[in-house]
Each structure stands twice: as structure tokens, then as C-alpha cells.
């Protein structure tokens, strides 16, 4: 143990109450920081997982016509890019999927024929979004099987005239597995389907409108000439979806959209909430820093004589400074460890708190994420705040002239 650390420990034990109070600030700052980050990211992560699990990490849509720049330039030419011609639907689905699977980041892909229809059951009618899917690749690409809350996916797979209905839509239409639902075709005729299962993604916009049907049936119902209006992808690393989307656009000449682009608005809300929580909680750590600054400043003032004695015995300025920085480090270290434990307990406790959210997300309890980075950031924040708070008193202690103190005692 170094001499400054030993003396710091001894000084610290003589100002237990003040140091404990300072430490409490760090403990609560770190704990609450971890807890709020776990919550805000928990909701965001749930939303991301749900949306990727339902709509894929990447979606390839309509074909567009490549833009060519002619030789003749208009006298009033603008720098704005010309609009490209977009053709609805994907015609060469098999070829695109075959090439896509060659990419290492692609885990699975599935064609989807999408259209808007009216759904009717009993006396209720509403607009719904029809997803015509091929069950086997769709199961590999999305979490649809896991999202089934009532009924069986196999009943859907084995019956081409069956559908899977989003659970909030099913609630509205008051249907359960085994019931009949009617879907209105663009030709104005109602087609009758059996509800095979109810699915809950947790994302409101999906659960209130989605109906899954078999692709071939959906193509006939929607009277589409093409077999798919989009291909959705499951990616090994969803964070790399934007770069893959750009690559796919150039490669296939079809519009491609990453989940980040698709959910940009919602992600911004989550990001803003998370940042806001972090700033608010950082203020607690900042206040703890002020407390530590006060405690250490008082400690320096009360130890002026001891500092002079230490200097007379050959302790360097850097040793004196280290004594007070060590005290700060002890507060930060012990406070952070206890704060991390408190943060974990708070996070666990919060995750058990029942809530009833039926808006953007569907959940019956607080959603949390267990991420070691929250603990790392909280600890780093505490260490930085405490170091800044300790530095000024430590520097001041190091600059004290021992002779001034000693001369004051005996001239």
C-alpha cells in the first residue's frame, strides 16, 4: 500500500459521516442511472425486437427504373436529382432471394404480398393490412410463431383458407381461433376464412391491423399480377441493415429500407427519452460531486497542519494531492460498486412492477434491459464527476506552503 493511500484511508475513517453522505450521493446517482437506462432501453429494445420480429430487419420493395443522365443539359437545369420511376411489386422473387442468401449477414428472407382490405366478422367491419406469406420461409424470417397467443401456427400452415389475425384486431372483430372472418376483395366480394390463430407482436400498429394469409390465396384475393410486393429479411447483425439496404438497392434496382429508416420516428422518441433520463440522473451525480467537493475542501482546511507535517517529513506535493484524490477515488469506487448493486436491484424491482400499456407497445409490466454497458457508463460518469470534485481540493492541498503553517505556530 502506498503512503498516500494509507494516509487517505486513515483520514477517511476519521470523517466517516461526511464521507458516507458523499458516498450516498454517488450510490444513488449510479443506481438510478442504471435503472433509468435499463428501463428506457428496455422499452426501446422491446419495440425494436418486435418490429424486426414482425416486419424484418430489411425490406426490399418495388422495382425502380435506373436514372440515366442525357448529354443534353437544359439551360434551366437544377441540381436536384430527377424522380425515378417506380414499378409496384417484385417479379423475379426467386432470383433475388437466391442472390440475397449469398450475403453473410442474411439469415433468412421471405416474400410477402401486401395489400389493404376490409375485414368483417359479425357486425364489425374494419380496414386491415393483409400479409400474404409463405409459412415456411416466413417462420424462419420472423418471430410470428412465437407471437401466437391463441390457436396454432400449424393449423394455419395446413389450411390455405385460414388466417392469423393480430390480437387487437381480433379483439375488435371479436373473433377467436375457429371463428370465421370475411375479407373483402378489390372486386367487391367477401372471401370467407377460418381464424387459425391470434398473434401479438407487442407493437400496436401491427396488432391492430395485421391479417396473415397464404401467399397464393392473398394474390388471388388482392388480384395482383405479381407474387410479392416485398421481401423481408432476417439479418445476423441488424445494426448493419442500412449499409446492406444501400447495397441491395444498387444490386437489385429495387427500393430497400432498413428497420432503422422505417422506424426512424419512433426510435428518435426512445432516443430522446433515454437521453433526457440520462441528463436528469447525471444531475444527481453532479450534485454528489458538489457534496464531495465540499467534504474534501473541508477536509483540506481541517488538515492544514497535518499537510505541513507531512511536507516537513518529505512528502511531495504529488503525495499530498494523491491523499485527497485517493479519498475521492474511495468514494467513487465504493459508491460505484454499491450503486451498481442498487441499480441491479432497482432494475429487477422495476421489472416486476405491473403496468398496463396498450399504446405504441403492448406490455403488462415494465420492460428492462440487462446491459453491462449501463453499469460501465454509470461508473465512468461517477468516477469523472468525483475526480473533478476531488481535483480542486487536492490541488489546493498540494499548493499549501508548510512554512506558513509551521511559522504560524512558532515564530
Amino acid at each position, binding site marked *: 500500500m502506498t503512503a498516500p493511500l494509507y494516509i487517505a484511508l486513515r483520514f477517511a475513517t476519521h470523517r466517516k459521516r461526511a464521507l458516507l453522505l458523499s458516498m450516498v450521493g454517488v450510490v444513488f446517482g449510479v443506481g438510478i442511472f442504471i435503472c433509468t437506462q435499463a428501463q428506457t432501453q428496455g422499452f426501446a429494445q422491446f419495440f425494436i425486437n418486435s418490429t424486426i420480429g414482425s416486419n424484418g430487419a430489411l425490406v426490399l420493395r418495388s422495382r425502380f427504373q435506373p436514372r440515366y443522365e442525357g448529354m443534353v443539359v437544359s439551360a434551366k437545369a437544377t441540381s436536384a436529382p430527377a424522380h425515378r420511376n417506380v414499378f409496384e411489386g417484385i417479379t423475379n422473387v426467386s432470383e433475388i432471394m437466391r442472390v440475397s442468401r449469398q450475403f453473410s449477414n442474411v439469415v433468412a428472407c421471405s416474400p410477402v404480398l401486401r395489400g389493404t382490405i376490409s375485414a368483417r366478422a359479425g357486425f364489425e367491419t374494419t380496414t386491415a393490412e393483409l400479409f400474404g406469406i409463405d409459412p415456411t420461409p416466413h417462420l424462419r424470417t420472423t418471430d410470428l410463431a412465437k407471437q401466437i397467443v391463441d390457436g396454432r401456427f400449424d393449423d394455419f400452415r395446413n389450411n390455405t383458407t385460414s388466417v392469423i389475425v393480430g390480437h387487437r384486431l381480433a379483439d375488435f372483430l371479436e373473433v377467436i381461433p375457429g371463428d370465421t372472418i370475411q375479407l373483402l376483395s378489390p372486386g367487391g366480394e367477401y372471401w370467407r376464412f377460418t381464424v387459425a390463430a391470434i398473434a401479438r407482436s407487442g407493437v400496436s400498429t401491427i396488432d391492430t391491423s395485421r391479417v396473415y394469409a397464404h401467399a397464393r390465396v392473398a394474390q388471388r384475393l388482392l388480384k395482383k399480377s405479381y407474387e410479392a410486393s416485398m421481401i423481408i429479411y432476417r439479418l445476423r447483425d441488424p445494426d448493419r441493415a442500412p449499409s446492406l439496404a444501400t447495397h441491395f438497392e444498387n444490386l437489385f434496382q429495387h427500393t430497400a429500407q432498413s428497420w432503422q429508416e422505417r422506424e426512424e420516428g419512433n426510435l428518435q422518441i426512445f432516443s430522446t427519452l433515454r437521453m433526457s433520463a440520462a441528463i436528469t440522473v447525471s444531475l444527481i451525480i453532479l450534485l454528489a460531486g458538489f457534496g464531495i467537493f465540499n467534504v474534501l475542501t473541508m477536509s483540506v482546511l481541517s488538515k492544514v497542519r497535518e499537510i505541513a507535517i507531512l511536507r516537513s517529513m518529505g512528502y511531495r506535493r504529488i503525495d499530498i494531492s494523491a491523499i485527497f484524490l485517493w479519498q475521492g477515488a474511495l468514494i467513487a469506487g465504493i459508491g460505484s460498486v454499491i450503486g451498481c448493486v442498487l441499480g441491479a436491484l432497482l432494475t429487477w424491482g422495476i421489472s416486476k412492477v405491473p403496468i398496463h400499456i396498450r399504446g405504441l407497445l403492448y406490455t403488462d409490466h415494465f420492460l428492462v434491459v440487462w446491459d453491462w454497458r449501463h453499469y460501465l457508463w454509470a461508473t465512468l460518469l461517477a468516477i469523472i464527476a468525483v475526480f473533478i470534485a476531488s481535483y480542486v481540493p487536492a490541488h489546493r492541498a498540494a499548493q499549501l506552503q508548510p512554512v506558513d503553517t509551521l*511559522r504560524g505556530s512558532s515564530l
Partner: protein
Amino acid sequence: MKGELSLSCRDIERYLGEEESRVHALRGVSLDVESGSIHAVVGPSGCGKSTLLYILGLLDEPNAGSVNIGATPISHLSDEELARRRNELIGFIFQFHFLMEDFSAHENVMIPMRRLGQMNESEMHERAATLLEAVDLGDKLRRLSRHLSGGEQQRVAIARALANDPSVILADEPTGNLDTGNSQRAFELLATLVREREKALLLVTHNRFIADACDWVHEMKDGRIIVSHPHGQRISV
């Protein structure tokens, strides 16, 4: 004078304060202190005794003149280097003992050793115990210094000053806060240890009997050493 030269200064000038309150505290002071000898500096309050002691102890810098420890000049040394030499070569004893109140006797003695960093914990404990036994405090090693009497505290300070086996001990009125009996005992102890261990001792004192018992007495007045007497000569304290 016999023995090796431990500490010396030449033509020391020191000003204290700023502008109108500026005081010429030391005016061309020169002094030689040999190992195994005891030197007393006497004089009225404010004559510059403590200022001289702090300069010789490398705690303060002179405005002019030079200080040597052994054969080494210490002018132009960095603050870090001065601190290292203070730790290795100089032991301080102050009037008000200046112990760490919340540290035990043996912890106080170990403070300079910790800085030196040449011994492990058990060796430091052993040395501190030996030194405290030498000052007759072997049975109070673990007692907090604030729970010791004034005489005992000063003896702890003496043990602490000897912790790193320094070649020079500087004492600023080491018995100034003790009664006559304790003063006498503390000085005798210090003198014995210094002579046994071949240290150089320079002490500032107002105590006539202590000054009389020193090998050399330097009388100061108005920032100057006006006269230096060897042992036995009458002085005008």
C-alpha cells in the same frame, strides 16, 4: 569542531512578507553543523531562528546564499528532490510536537518510513517499536497520540524524527511546550540519541539550561548570528 560536516549554510538572506510589511528576516547568516554535535540557536522572538531552521530544513528557500547537506549544494533542486532529501536526510521536531492526532504512536513514527518506501510493513513496525522503546514508550505503541501526555507526545516526535535514520535533526523549540522536568528529560534523551547515533542536531531554544548543555550556541539578533560560543561559555539568553 570534530566530525564530518553534515549541514552548512553561507550568507543566507531571507525576506518575509510583501511590500510595506516586508521584513529582512535573515541577514547573511553562515553556519556549520558537524555530525555528532549539538548546536543551539538562541535569541529573542522574531530574530529569525525559525526562519533559519526552515531554510536549513529545506522547507523554505533563501533569497540569497547557499545551503549544503553534506557536500551537496541544495540550491536549484526541484521541489520533488528537496522533498526526497528532507525525507532521507532530515528529521524535524517541533515545539507543539505536531503529531497526527488520530494516529497511534507507532503509526506516527512510521509516517516518514512509508514515504521512504524501503521497508515492508513488518519491518516498519519493528523499527517503530525499537525507536519508541528507545524513548521509553515501548508500552504505548498503539495508543493514539492525542491520548498521550505532552512529554510522551514530544518523545514520539523525537522517535519520528529518527525514523529514517537522518543525518541531521532540526528541532524548533522542542521543549518549549513542556514543564521543566519534562524539558530536561526530553533534551537528555535527544542528546543521548544524537551522540550515540552520530547525528547532527540543531535546535532553536529559549531554554538557557538546554542551550548551556549544547556543544555550540549561536546567538541571533535582528537576523544575524552575532556570536557563537563553544560548550561551557556563558550566553545571554
